[in-house]
């Protein structure tokens, strides 16, 4: 392994400068312990640039959108729509009209399940998901299975968390209508071979939904190049605010989908008898939307673009490999998922033999270190690994090797404490 010094020359991120953009990283926890935030797979922190755009909206431009002739309403509408264009550009969507604002990945997937699924899936049609999905890409399909009678099949994972693609090719048959997979596991961090999944789906004539909640913040995403049909993600995991997310879908699918919610903003005309729907994307965005959230989402995309997604990925690969190597040196630590940082994002799930993750997380918190413990909303993975829960450290562009050192030091303390 290369030394730290030569490693840090392989990418061009000025971490100290980046850290200054995140005021929360100067916070102290317990009694004077500087925050070490390693729970980025759950939610990321917010840079001042994003906070400023959200604040500026409420301070200078706050109004409802699409409905006024007055100046503020026109400004608010323009800010909202320009955020949509930024997001479309960030993911290289063919047009921003295909970008639907939702409250997050969960709503995006549910929108596909209920607005597309109920329209196009009938009894006996197969939907293929995987054993490594987040609950939000499992439960909506189970609901459709119970209500519509679709057949729900899972691509199993191999022992390192990667998907069993041989099994997948048997599973994705001609009666498969949709393959819905995560681009990166939130529990193990392994990166899905999307092109292999897309190839199988194409051969079977099935559509592909990609859950990008974990990949969008960390890997450059080019929706057109991926050649998929639906893409879901959440702003709060990519430096944006909570309560806003994206569903991108090909226009040919959006035109066949019925809106889930009716109300203001999504109609063209309403009479006592019936209504006609507004154009896409408005058709799927009933009611006053999360305007400030959308603006913050757009600002987060700008921030990530300025730093550069390749730089972020390189930094994360480096810090993840550094952490894996250090953790492996602690005797009782067992790391789940692939050990090669090229095959995973900045997520490391691990356990200390004989000590419950909850206790690990508690002691770490007293040292100011925030990690996640539990089943990470991915219980099928926990069953496959035969563990009730894991501890998970997850990194982002502002984390440093020094913070990894603090993590491993604290883990040694945990081992001393509980014996």
């Amino acid at each position, binding site marked *: 392994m290369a030394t730290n010094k030569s490693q840090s020359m392989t990418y061009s991120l000025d971490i100290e400068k980046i850290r200054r953009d995140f005021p929360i990283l100067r916070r102290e926890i317990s*009694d004077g312990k500087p925050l070490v935030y390693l729970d980025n797979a759950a939610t990321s922190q917010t840079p001042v640039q994003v906070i400023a755009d959200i604040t500026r909206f409420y301070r200078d431009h706050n109004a409802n959108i699409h409905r006024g002739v007055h100046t503020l309403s026109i400004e608010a509408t323009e800010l909202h729509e320009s955020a949509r264009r930024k997001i479309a550009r960030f993911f290289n969507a063919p047009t921003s009209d295909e970008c639907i604002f939702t409250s997050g990945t969960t709503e995006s997937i549910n929108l596909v399940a209920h607005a597309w699924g109920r329209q196009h899936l009938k009894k006996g049609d197969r939907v293929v998901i995987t054993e490594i999905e987040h609950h939000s890409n499992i439960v909506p399909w189970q609901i459709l299975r119970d209500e519509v009678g679709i057949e729900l099949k899972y691509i199993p994972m191999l022992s390192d968390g990667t998907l069993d693609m041989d099994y997948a090719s048997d599973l994705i048959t001609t009666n498969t209508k949709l393959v819905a997979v995560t681009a990166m596991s939130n529990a193990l961090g392994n990166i899905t071979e999307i092109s292999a999944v897309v190839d199988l789906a194409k051969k079977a004539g099935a559509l592909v939904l990609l859950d990008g909640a974990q990949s969008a913040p960390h890997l450059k995403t080019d929706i057109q190049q991926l050649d998929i049909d639906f893409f879901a993600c959440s702003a709060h995991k990519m430096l944006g605010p909570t309560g806003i997310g994206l569903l991108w879908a090909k226009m040919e699918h959006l035109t066949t989908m019925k809106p889930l919610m009716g109300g203001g903003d999504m109609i063209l005309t309403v009479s006592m008898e019936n209504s006609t729907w507004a154009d896409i994307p408005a058709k799927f965005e009933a009611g006053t939307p999360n305007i400030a959230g959308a603006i913050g989402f757009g600002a987060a995309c700008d921030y990530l673009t300025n730093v550069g997604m390749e730089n972020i990925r390189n930094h994360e690969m480096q810090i993840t490999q550094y952490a894996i190597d250090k953790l492996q040196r602690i005797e009782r630590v067992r790391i789940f998922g692939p050990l090669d940082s090229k095959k995973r994002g900045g997520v490391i799930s691990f356990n200390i033999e004989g000590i*419950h993750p*909850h206790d690990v997380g508690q002691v770490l918190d007293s040292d100011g270190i925030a990690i996640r*413990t*539990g089943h990470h909303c991915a*219980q099928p993975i*926990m069953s496959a690994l035969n563990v*009730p829960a894991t501890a998970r450290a997850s990194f982002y562009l502002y984390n440093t090797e020094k913070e990894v050192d603090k993590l491993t030091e604290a883990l040694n303390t945990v081992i001393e404490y509980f014996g």
Partner: protein
Amino acid sequence: MSGTLLDELYKEIILDHYRQPRNKGELVNSTCSANGANPLCGDEIQLQVTLVDNVIEQIAFTGAGCSISQAASSMMTEFVQGRPISEALVGVLSFQEMMTSGVPSEVDGFDDIDALMGVAKFPARVKCASLSWKTLEQALDGNSTATTE
């Protein structure tokens, strides 16, 4: 590592029960049992009870979980063993009360259990401490998950 707050949670007596749990194992002649789980943390417990004339003659638990859930299970079984159901149920209520108030209970024989008082300051851990008591209540209830042999 910060001593004070953490030591309030992980008192020595708690770690002692965690390292050497009392009544851990299985009963051959149990009369009722129940399973409990905190899916979010991954704590689970299987509780077996032998009742004779409404008295808890024997009690044992198996399962896995964090130190708090394991120590609390151990302490709970130690407390209820040999007591009538009515007293065990008073224990259930008193424990709940302690988890909300953070004040030691006045129940006779709660000595070790009172050490769990500090858990009230850690809202995320109250579930862990309460699991075995909730499971005991279910087992004694004799309904749904409880089995009688």
